């Protein structure tokens, strides 16, 4: 292997140079608020790039607004942290990210009946975070307009908050009911009616539910509902060890599986104080680059299909096969690549594979150039993308957009550059920007990112460091908290991991980029034609499986479910049926002559 890798940069010095001035500013504007806190006033810095500030719940809105008033970063996530029945309190963690620095506002709350003021009025992106926090922990923000379920089913029992430590999730009920879609709304008066899109709809290959109120062809209102594929992964991580969790979290998303695996690995490695060998870091970045190419080509096809340009759809998906084959050659898998191990990677890239990669990348780059030309010059296609769904820089920042959606509006927000992790410190990439902010700009940004990814992978292949692939990783991870941010193809993926010294994590919080971008899409849709809506949704490259992570539950107070054959009088009684019993019930039902 070629051993002429660039000299490693003094990471910490550079990081500190970026982080220090930011922290000076934070201390400045948060000082008055932090000093009022009765729990533990002051700032503490658990890691060089992080500052934790304890504040009173009443000061939350003031503190959160201060970040935005001082143009210090953006709200990345709200993490709920239950300290269990013994310590009897829970914490709400509001993470703000600016450059490489992460400032966390910590609010201490009682485990039951706690309340925080809503900050969604000031920071719209917080709306979805707060709804998730409310349904998972039972802390309902006061002043939050919409407190309906975002992820959990409508028939979820009241008072059962899944992420509280002592909540036992009962076994799944046999037949889950999905309601809320049988609303008999045709005419809302004044010629308005609601056009539902999803959860089963040809425009969405993944389940999400949108309701667009239209007047003729013009959209005048928009709302959405997620969670049709919520699998309760965050809760599941708490009962599995670190290694099992790696495979679990890789299944958060089918397209950006490597993003989640590497974000999680980075977090656990940071907690354990393990440095990943350089070659392993480089291989992780190669896979991340290929994953980005895969994701963007897939998106290009879907977006073209939504616009009604099926030829581009067919061609870009044909070429997507090439990158999937490359990924299969390197990792052995086409979808869940499973290249990461805690402390390294599973497979090496040999000479033959490197050559195959180079050849494949040449072809993909040439095809991408062609697609770039198509989406920027085809006048019919431009009619559907140019000046449509325009989002200004200020709006993008206000609505908390992330990833290519934000970069197309001129927001410089890319974790790989702002807070380089892993091999991105040695093999930096450039940020692709556009200032137009319309759909065309989003196409341009994503296609240009294909070129950047291609050349980044080539550089790494030419300078692959010659080291081991793995390093020793302890089974038990020392107690601590850490934040790991990774740039997924759709934007920043944010992980918060808390360890407790055992071989299972205390809490894993996953915030995917799609959740941050919804607010911007719903805003753009209003006032547009119905025909533009699918393309607007596709424009942010939504990923539902990323968003949703479903817990199904059996509860005797539920109003839905299978009525037992033996107790027909009691409408609310439910019980678990075996497959055999269900089959027998079906046979008897039809023998009786149906529902008489």
């Amino acid at each position, binding site marked *: 292997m070629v051993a002429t890798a660039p000299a490693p940069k003094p990471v910490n010095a550079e990081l500190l140079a970026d982080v220090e001035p930011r922290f000076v500013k934070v201390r400045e504007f948060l000082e008055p608020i932090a000093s009022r806190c009765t729990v533990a006033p002051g700032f503490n810095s658990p890691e060089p790039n992080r500052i934790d500030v304890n504040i009173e719940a009443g000061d939350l809105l003031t503190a959160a607004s201060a970040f935005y008033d001082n143009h210090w970063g953006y709200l990345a996530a709200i993490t709920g942290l239950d300290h269990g029945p013994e310590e009897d309190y829970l914490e709400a963690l509001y993470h703000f990210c600016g450059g490489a620095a992460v400032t966390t506002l910590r609010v201490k709350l009682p485990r039951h009946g706690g309340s925080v003021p809503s900050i969604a009025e000031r920071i719209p992106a917080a709306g979805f975070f707060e709804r998730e926090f409310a349904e998972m922990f039972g802390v309902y923000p006061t002043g939050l307009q919409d407190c309906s379920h975002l992820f959990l089913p409508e028939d979820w029992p009241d008072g059962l908050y899944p992420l509280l430590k002592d909540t036992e999730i009962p076994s799944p009920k046999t037949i889950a009911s999905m309601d809320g879609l049988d609303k008999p709304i045709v005419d809302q008066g004044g010629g308005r009616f609601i056009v539902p899109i999803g959860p089963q709809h040809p425009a969405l290959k993944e389940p999400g539910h949108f309701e667009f109120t239209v007047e003729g062809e013009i959209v005048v209102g928009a709302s959405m509902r997620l969670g049709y594929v919520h699998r309760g992964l965050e809760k599941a991580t708490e009962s599995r060890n670190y290694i099992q969790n790696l495979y679990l979290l890789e299944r958060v998303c089918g397209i950006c599986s490597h993003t989640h695996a590497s974000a999680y690995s980075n977090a656990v490695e940071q907690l354990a104080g393990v440095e990943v060998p350089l070659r392993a870091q480089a291989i992780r970045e190669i896979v991340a680059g290929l994953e980005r190419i895969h994701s963007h080509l897939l998106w290009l096809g879907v977006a073209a299909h939504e616009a009604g340009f099926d030829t581009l759809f*067919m061609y870009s998906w044909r070429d997507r096969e090439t990158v999937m084959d490359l990924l299969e050659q390197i990792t052995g898998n086409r979808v869940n690549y499973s290249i990461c191990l805690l402390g390294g990677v599973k497979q090496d890239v040999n000479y033959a594979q490197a050559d195959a990669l180079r050849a494949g990348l040449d072809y993909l780059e040439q095809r991408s150039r062609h697609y770039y030309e198509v989406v920027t010059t085809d006048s019919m296609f431009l009619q559907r993308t140019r000046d449509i769904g325009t989002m200004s820089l200020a709006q993008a920042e206000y609505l908390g957009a992330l990833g290519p959606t934000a970069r197309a509006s001129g927001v410089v927000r890319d974790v790989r550059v702002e807070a380089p992790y892993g091999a991105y410190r040695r093999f930096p990439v450039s940020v692709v920007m556009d200032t137009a902010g319309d759909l065309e700009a989003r196409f341009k940004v994503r296609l240009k990112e294909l070129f950047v990814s291609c050349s980044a992978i080539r550089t790494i292949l030419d300078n692959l460091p010659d080291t081991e692939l793995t390093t020793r990783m302890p089974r038990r991870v020392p107690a601590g908290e850490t934040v790991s941010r990774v740039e997924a193809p759709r934007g920043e993926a944010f992980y918060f991991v808390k360890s407790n010294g055992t071989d299972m994590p205390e809490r894993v919080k996953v915030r995917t980029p799609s959740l941050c971008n919804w607010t911007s899409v719903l805003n753009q849709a209003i006032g547009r034609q*119905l025909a*533009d809506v699918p393309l607007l949704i596709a424009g942010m490259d939504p990923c539902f499986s990323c968003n949703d992570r479903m817990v199904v539950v059996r509860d005797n107070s539920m109003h839905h479910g299978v009525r037992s054959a033996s107790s027909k009088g009691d409408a609310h009684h439910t019980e678990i049926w075996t497959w055999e019993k269900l089959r027998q019930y079906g046979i008897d039902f039809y023998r009786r002559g149906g529902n008489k």
Partner: protein
Amino acid sequence: MKLVIPPLIYMLLFPGGLGLIMTGLLYEWVHRKLVARLQNRIGPRWFQPMADALKLLLKEEIIPSEVNPYLFVGLPVAGIAGVLTAGLYVPLWGFPAAYSFDGDLIVTLYLLSLLTLSTGLAGWNTRSRFSLVGATRTLTQLFAYEAPFMMALLGPALAVGSWRMNDIIAGNQGTWLMFTQPIGFIVAVIGLMGKLEMPPFDAPEAETEIVAGALTDYSGRGLVLFHIGRTTEMLVGLTMIAALYMGGINGPLDFVIKTLPVLLLISGFQTLITRLRIDQTVGLWWRYGALLVLLQWVVLIVLKGIS
């Protein structure tokens, strides 16, 4: 070519009726295969459209509870009847039209619109939200392309000075009007695509917005009747364009030679262009389509006046 066929056979079996439907399905296969190859796909086998039609005919038809059942069942029949009747006035397969009278060109054009009108009414009748939006779009689009399309097909009639299709074909025998009236020819071809709701004019059934548009709640027999109607309309439309703009049709071989290139042209357009929004479709037809055809009419009338 003179071929004496008893009227009943003509209407029910060949070349009208069943023959028309089967040929339509074969042409649909050619169309699907062409589009597939242009989009880098394999495409269906030759009998696929027939298999689809047969399968749907055998399937249960679900009639939604809130619709008027007579309209629900009757509309597809009315639509397909219109198209099959239109088939009697065009030189299918290169045989002279079964019936001919003064003004049959106009009647044929209106008969072809009956299917679109039925589709729109069917969407309005089923009361589903997708159907309603789809029906509105179908009818909006009808008003967009209908006038330019009709004017484009009346161009050859103006050149001859008769509204009777047989006279027009006889009067232009051997002259390829697509070269002397290119605008009319192009507008007629694109108008046919609009009539058939092919991309880029497929906003009325844009699956990514409104599922299947006006026909969302149709299943089984009703759906397939609409489908066959559409396919047959394509064949009748192609025949009209070939007969009026490509120097008449002399026999079955000539029919195939003249209609297939038009089909290829349609498939090519369809593959290259992104779906237009309904406002863009209307804008395109009235801003360019109608004006260009009018311009050609003016030129024609002036030239006729001079000669």
